[in-house]
């Protein structure tokens, strides 16, 4: 029933980035390009490197002007952050919001994306345009009324409300992305399955979703990433109970030592999952960005 070639298609999108260019020699151009890349990498990493340095310095030299470049490394700040603030709780909140968002976004988005990819009529076009419009909305236009509603309904300052808000806000992107992945799977498969007696739902569940493994992972990683990065919505919809790490860091910007250094430690700790995303999940992120932009 399944042709051997088709499971390759979605994987191929992901592997596309790893395609090898032609062989080349070490030339003057290579040196220039290498130098350019090295400088760029250093420049792009400099804020992270400097902050990591600042939080391993003893408190009295962490933010010293003029800056020190040689110091006795210490992890006291991380220990202080962990023990004297509710940082642990903020991390849990951020994780909970991200996980709920991801699960809900996929549950809602998969059927819709499947339908949009299989029925290219004017309705789908309209819905896609509407999705683009929603994606382009300024967040305040949506989040401020959510704040009002959440307060009156009693859901203000809960991780669930924040997760739900993020699901809705990221739904257009999710559907867009998944639709492009679905479009890679030829609908001859659907037809074959339906001729064997499957309903559309069964086709989705039994045929499409197993093939969409990488696509689902990509969309899930993106929604997780967006939830993890969110500041604006989180600052409006949370207060004490559902505070997330970016909101916490923002509340510490006007502190003095040693709390300011602890905010830096929080920032560095939050970079660690970012590193995981950038390296381990790299090919999914790349595939996701490509799926949104390249035709076929």
């Amino acid at each position, binding site marked *: 029933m399944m042709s051997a070639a088709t499971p390759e298609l979605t*994987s191929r999108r992901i592997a596309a980035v790893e395609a090898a260019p032609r062989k080349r020699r070490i030339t003057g151009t290579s040196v220039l390009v290498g130098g350019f890349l090295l400088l760029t990498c250093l420049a792009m990493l400099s804020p992270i490197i400097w902050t990591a340095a600042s939080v391993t310095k003893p*408190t*009295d*030299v962490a*933010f*010293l*002007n003029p800056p020190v470049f040689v110091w006795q490394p210490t992890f006291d700040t991380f220990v*202080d952050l*962990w*023990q*004297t*603030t*509710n*940082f*642990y*709780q903020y*991390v*849990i909140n951020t*994780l909970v919001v991200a996980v709920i968002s991801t699960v809900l976004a996929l549950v809602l988005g998969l059927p819709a994306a499947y339908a949009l990819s299989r029925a290219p009529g004017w309705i789908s076009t309209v819905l896609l345009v509407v999705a683009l419009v929603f994606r382009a909305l300024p967040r305040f236009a949506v989040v401020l009324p959510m704040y009002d509603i959440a*307060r009156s309904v009693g859901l*203000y*300052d809960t991780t669930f409300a924040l997760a739900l808000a993020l699901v809705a806000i990221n739904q257009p992107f999710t559907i867009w992305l998944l639709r492009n992945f679905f479009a890679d799977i030829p609908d001859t498969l659907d037809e074959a399955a339906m001729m064997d007696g499957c309903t559309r739902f069964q086709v989705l569940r039994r045929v499409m979703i197993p093939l969409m*493994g*990488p696509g689902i*992972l990509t969309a899930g990683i993106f929604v997780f990433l967006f939830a993890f990065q969110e500041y604006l919505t989180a600052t409006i919809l949370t*207060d*004490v109970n559902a*505070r997330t790490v970016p909101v*916490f860091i*923002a*509340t*510490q*910007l*006007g*502190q*003095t*030592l*040693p*709390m*300011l250094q602890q905010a830096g430690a929080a920032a560095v700790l939050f970079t660690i999952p970012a590193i*995981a995303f950038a390296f*381990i999940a790299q090919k999914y992120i790349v595939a996701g960005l490509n799926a949104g932009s390249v035709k076929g």
Partner: protein
Amino acid sequence: MRPSLRTHGAVALTAVAVLALSACGAGSKTTSATATQVTCDVPKPSSPTTVNVLAYNSSAIDPFTNTMVSSCSKNDYTLKHEPIDFPGQVQKTTATLAGASGTYDIVETYGFVIPQYGSQSKLAPLDDLYAKHADAYKLNDISKDMRAAMTYDGKLYALPMQAQMYIMAYRKDVFDQVGLKPPTTFEELKSAAKTIQDKAGIKYPIALPWLATADIVTSYDCILGSLGTNLTNFDTKTANFDKPQAKQALEEMLALKPYMDPQVTTFAQPAVQQQMYNGTAAIAIMFSGRMNDLTLEKNSKFSKNFAFAPPPKVAADSPKLYDTLSVDGWSIPNNTALDKDALFQMIASSVSVDASKASLPAAYPARTGMVSDSSSPYAAAANVSITSAPPAEPYPWTADVSNKITPIIANVVLGKTSADEGVTQMQQAATAAIAAAK
């Protein structure tokens, strides 16, 4: 595909396990460092209750906050306090008091905001509760003047915990090196700064909190107060910016500018503290609650070199010091859902005799007779400062007037507006604000 999913799953599970294990120790030292265990016998609530406390972090406020959280979290009450900076507290106070229900049950307030929240009935008047519990918690030992500072229209809206006044911190080693004594007038301050610039190599010796969106108006108000003038006149309901002192105050600020870091209009008090920690400034004048940090070895290698004095007068014949007296206290929002009696007992415990004693040397407690000249490195300076500060202006429009003139003062200091034009604009804005106040 499945094997890599499994690996990812394993990684995720390990991460979760690590997090769960390291939950132990999280937040364990929250209150121990500056908390004291005091009596807090609040009757048990009908069901487990969480009390949310809003208070910014500073070495002077933290002892009271932490004492309250650690002493009263028992008997089915859990007190929660999240760290937050001062601008954050200001924003969250507005937000929580705005509606019919709010997040916080106890909020830290200070004299400046009492008239506006009192007149808007956002805070619960505490007179009855005060009378009920005064004997048990010895509340009558709290300075009468400070209680008056937290009173509006005859009602007490906050229980005072401490006073904060301007203190001048300076580098004793630098002063000794160039042969200076703490300045007592702005002229002396400027000439001391010049000497330090020339002989000690510090480019911008003076550090004042002049944040263009907030603190700068406090500094202006203190200069005006030192010259013997208020922002507004309560009896005639007019603003005082048409008086010569208003323009003179602006000119005094401009005269100080060359001795201060060019980025001073982005500096709130923490940034001024940092200048002192760095040794890039030698003289700072700001609230006493920020003084203790300067003496902590952890924060700066100059911690042993700081000395403290009362702030200077603007001119030798000025009636008052360049100074202000702010009282910090605990208030109960009107829109809290919890039992106000229980909340009052919690805040009363946090300002008990033991708690107040334990807040030294960082804070200047509101209880009378607590601060002798040897209570803290800056106590002697504080005791002088507190007696010669300009009077407060507890009028319903003061906060609004201050907010309206802030950007104008900033523009004058930044050189975008002339002093003459500045006072004209300030007079207009203040007159409108007074008229708009109920």
